[in-house]
């Protein structure tokens, strides 16, 4: 899992079956010091409670879909939790 900052929202009305009700957010992946690395990505919100501006942690690949209510869906990045506090040296 890695840190990411939520920087936007995405709405798609027409979606693959199974993705109904899933909230999509635009996230910027971060390094451990919370500095941006790479390009922004679209993540499914597994917490259903994240919003723009928040620091979150994400899970990728197969495990992303497992973070959602319907677990066999085409998703490769999902938000697992919202970060309250980080202490990294």
């Amino acid at each position, binding site marked *: *899992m890695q840190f990411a900052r939520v920087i936007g929202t995405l709405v798609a009305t027409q979606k693959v079956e199974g993705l109904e009700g899933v909230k999509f957010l635009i996230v910027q992946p971060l390094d451990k010091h919370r500095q941006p*690395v790479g390009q922004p990505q679209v993540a499914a919100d597994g917490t259903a409670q994240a919003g723009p501006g928040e620091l979150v942690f994400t899970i990728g690949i197969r495990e992303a879909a*497992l973070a959602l209510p319907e*677990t066999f869906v085409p998703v490769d990045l999902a938000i697992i939790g919202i970060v309250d506090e980080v202490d990294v040296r």
Partner: protein
Amino acid sequence: MYIGRVSGTVVSTIKNELYVGRKLLVVDRLDLAGQPTVKYDIAVDMVQAGVGDLVLVLDEGNSARQIVGREPDGAIRALIVGIVDQVALEDDAPIGG
């Protein structure tokens, strides 16, 4: 699996239920010379590791789900599964990178 160094802690209240009661640590992935690379993971601690510890990290979903007892649908992948006491390498091992 890879060798990492625990470099920090993460606190989260709103999270996937599988993570409730589990400790999250930031682990730097090390090269064979023991130097941190740019790669890191936020991993679930299974062995009472702490900041500064040299650890063994598993980053594979099926194994992780088996260890936490949440097959087949646990959304979990990176686990700290050991605290490393010693690493021995051949003299001509390709250290670095």
